């Protein structure tokens, strides 16, 4: 059988004729098909057309169908003149010609319908959204409102005021964090501190308010190593979430003090320190030490001494054995034995830091009474310079001689006033006269002769000799044996008018002026935990405890099971708190006579 396939593309125009030998034609989009329908809607192999003697039969592949007589069918029998439609393309069976049995006319539909995709917005690109325009829009919006507008205010301060008053964005949006409470008054006036654009805040800006602040590091100590600390803002960082601007961390101190430092101002070499528990030098005490020139003390100077020095001694010129006074059995007193405790003498100052100064009148005199005459045990000399003591005793004995030899029968006010000079007369018969001679012999003949010559015309020399000799004897007693010498260092120079000289006592009040130690904060402890006074026989013993004792309770910031302490807990920051080693005005006070 022979079949002719005739393609018609436009009306009546035969574009192509194909003759096929055989009785079966395949239909589909594929190029291996006999009847090619170049349309994506048509399956690659749609079905087959089989020719018979009186017509043709079309059968389709599974799931495919053709339109025949207004019906979608899977199979159909075509007679000459019948037409089937496949996706708009028409296949007609015509009578054979040119020696062919049938002509299969294929009319390719060229009617173009707008694709459905074009009728609806089915693609994302149909939405006309543009990334680029949105990107630039957002870029310029943010740039304008967050940078350009506030910066225009930085250029023109008056315009900044306008911005701040209006609802337009100003430089307030640049604030990285809140100001600390004391700085809140600055408000939104950034220019108060940020004086120059693109320049860090200067020390001058800080010091425009903080005028009274002392320099943290003395000028003299600022070397090249201190570059990091030349700006306030190097350490004091604003706009941070913190309550204070000071850095109390151990690390900031350690940064420098990891190396031994040298204070040029007072010429002291400090050890290095990184941690209280593990790496801290032994304590140094600031002790008042006498400067002796030509065997006499000219002034007192603070001397720093290491506590671990075995030869450390205090030179206060006071003789005071702590052990004796703290004897558990008690100590003798005019009222019988008493048991003394530290607090009896060492009373804390109201500030809780140091102890109140020790004075003779307040702390010693209740036991150490300055009596000088066994016959008149209530009479005492003043606690003062030797000249005053001598003066008082001369007066006392002169008056006593006069009043003892007066007629006791006269009733007179003056006589009654003299009662205070009356003492028990002769305790043992005949002794007084002998004693008198002994006493008066203590005056050398030159003195007696000059007194006799001086008093011949006025008072009886006997009286003056009596008084002077007794005063002299009593003075020798109290200066050299009884009173003064018990506590003081008394030197004798026979060439002087008053031969006795009492060395001044100066007690150190602030032993650790660099440490923020308070007795108040250590009330839970007893004195002997730190000060081993009960075994101290000498007043030269230094009873300030060294670092080991503190370490029983205190440690560094990382220490466990002890109180974690950072440097600033004990130390002031350089000169900020006004701690100077040589700043002890009390020294002058002690040098005054009578103290």
């Amino acid at each position, binding site marked *: 059988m022979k079949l002719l396939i005739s393609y018609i593309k436009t009306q009546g125009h035969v574009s192509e004729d194909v003759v096929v030998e055989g009785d079966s034609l395949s239909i589909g989009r594929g190029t291996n098909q006999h009847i090619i329908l170049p349309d*994506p*809607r048509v399956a690659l192999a749609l079905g087959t057309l089989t020719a018979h003697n009186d017509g043709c039969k079309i059968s389709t592949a599974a799931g495919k169908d053709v*339109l025949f007589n*207004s*019906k*979608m069918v899977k199979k159909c029998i075509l007679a000459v003149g019948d037409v089937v439609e496949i*996706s*708009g393309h028409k296949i007609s069976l015509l009578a054979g010609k040119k020696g062919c049995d049938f002509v299969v006319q294929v009319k390719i539909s060229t009617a173009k*319908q707008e*694709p*459905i*995709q074009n009728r*609806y*917005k*089915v*693609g*994302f690109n*149909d*939405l006309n*959204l543009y*990334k680029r325009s*949105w*990107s*630039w*829009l*957002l*870029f*310029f*919006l*943010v*740039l304008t409102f*967050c*940078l350009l507008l*506030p*910066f225009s205010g*930085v250029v023109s301060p008056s315009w900044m005021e306008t911005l701040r008053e209006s609802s337009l964005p100003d*430089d307030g*949006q*640049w*604030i*990285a*964090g*809140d100001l600390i409470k004391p700085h809140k008054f600055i408000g939104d006036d*950034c220019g108060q501190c*940020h004086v120059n*654009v*693109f*320049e*860090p*805040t200067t020390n001058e800006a800080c010091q425009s308010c903080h005028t009274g602040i002392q320099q943290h590091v003395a000028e003299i100590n600022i070397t090249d190593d201190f570059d990091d600390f030349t700006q306030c803002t190097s*350490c004091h*960082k604003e706009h*941070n*979430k*913190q309550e204070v601007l000071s*850095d109390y*961390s151990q*690390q*900031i101190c350690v940064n420098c003090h990891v190396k031994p430092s040298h204070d040029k101002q007072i010429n002291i070499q400090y050890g290095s320190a990184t941690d209280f528990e593990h790496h801290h030098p032994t304590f140094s005490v600031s002790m008042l030490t006498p400067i002796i020139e030509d065997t006499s003390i000219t002034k007192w100077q603070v001397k720093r001494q290491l506590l671990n020095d075995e030869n450390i001694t205090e030179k206060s010129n006071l003789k005071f054995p702590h052990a004796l006074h703290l004897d558990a059995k008690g100590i003798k007193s005019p009222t019988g034995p008493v048991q003394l405790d530290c607090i009896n003498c060492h009373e804390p100052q109201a500030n809780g830091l140091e102890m109140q100064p020790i004075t003779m009148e307040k702390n010693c005199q209740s036991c150490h009474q300055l009596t000088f005459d066994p016959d008149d045990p209530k009479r005492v000399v003043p606690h003062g310079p030797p000249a005053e003591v001598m003066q008082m005793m001369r007066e006392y004995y002169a008056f006593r001689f006069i009043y003892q030899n007066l007629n006791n029968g006269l009733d007179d006010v003056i006589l009654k006033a003299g009662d205070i000079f009356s003492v028990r007369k002769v305790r043992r018969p005949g002794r007084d006269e002998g004693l008198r001679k002994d006493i008066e012999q203590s005056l050398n003949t030159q003195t007696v002769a000059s007194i006799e010559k001086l008093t011949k015309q006025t008072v009886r020399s006997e009286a003056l000799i009596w008084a002077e000799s007794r005063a002299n004897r009593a003075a020798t007693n109290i200066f050299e044996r009884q009173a003064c010498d018990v506590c003081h260092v008394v030197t004798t120079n026979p060439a002087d008018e008053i031969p006795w000289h009492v060395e001044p006592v100066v007690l150190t009040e602030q032993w650790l002026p660099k440490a923020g130690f308070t007795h108040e904060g250590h009330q839970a402890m007893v004195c002997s935990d730190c000060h081993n006074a009960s075994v101290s026989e000498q007043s030269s013993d230094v009873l300030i405890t060294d670092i080991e004792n503190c370490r029983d309770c205190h440690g560094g910031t990382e220490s466990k099971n002890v109180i974690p302490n950072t440097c600033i807990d004990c130390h002031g920051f350089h000169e900020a708190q006004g701690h100077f080693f040589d700043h002890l005005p009390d020294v002058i006070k002690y040098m005054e006579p009578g103290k």
Partner: protein
Amino acid sequence: MDQFLSHANGRYLKITLILTTVISIIYVLHEPGQPKNGGTWFGYTSGTISALLILWLMYFGRRKRDYFSTLGTVKGWLSSHVYFGSGLLILATLHTGFQFALNVHTLAYLLMCIAIFSGFYGALTYVYLPIKKRENLKTISAEEYYLSIEDVDRQILKLSKELPEKLTSIINSSIEHTKIGGNVFNQLSVKDRSCILVNDKLIANQNQSACINILVTELAKVTDQVRATQLKQTIDFFGSRNKSLKILRYHIKTNALLKLWLYIHVPISFALIAALLAHILSVFIYW
């Protein structure tokens, strides 16, 4: 498509994990002597790295179009873009020292977060949506679905010419008022908003059900065998038409999701560049 995540055996994932871990440890250990913030040595370092990283990440938009570039592969760039972008989130967070407030600095951080998280979503869509897309379309292309709908439409119209005029106009209106795609929200929802004109009234024709209902009712009434067959075929056509429409709607949604995140990711990244400029400059204007 998901190969970009495991590119080069996860090389960039490993680099990011190692670097972020190291940087996080440094952050925890460093003690600047003040609350941790962007102004410490760590803050300046992490800030500088972050800013440079942002510029590099944005250069990816340029690099992926640079078809002749031999500087690595685009897949490699995409892989590092995703992982280094994730690392940026950690690095920039450590740069802030967890100090946030209502200011330009936090704005820059927020914009960066939006860009990064939209990027996460984008990476996720690139991994999962192509699979969903294939499953939905089965083996046929979307183009073929559209053509099949056109074909069905034409056949319905041809069949409907034989039916009473009233039914013809209803069937015509059903085809005419079919909705697919539309604006961004319509594309993202797969809801069928098709309508049908019955007695001059536009009623909802979701899933072509209104139209099919009318045809079924009509089918129940007819006695003529030919007419019944025509009606049955029309109903069948509407059924297959609806099936194709449903698949296409899901296809449109998937396509929109694959592209939409970029319309957030890219513009926000540009806004971030501006905020970053304001952040850096403002810090040094008021140093």
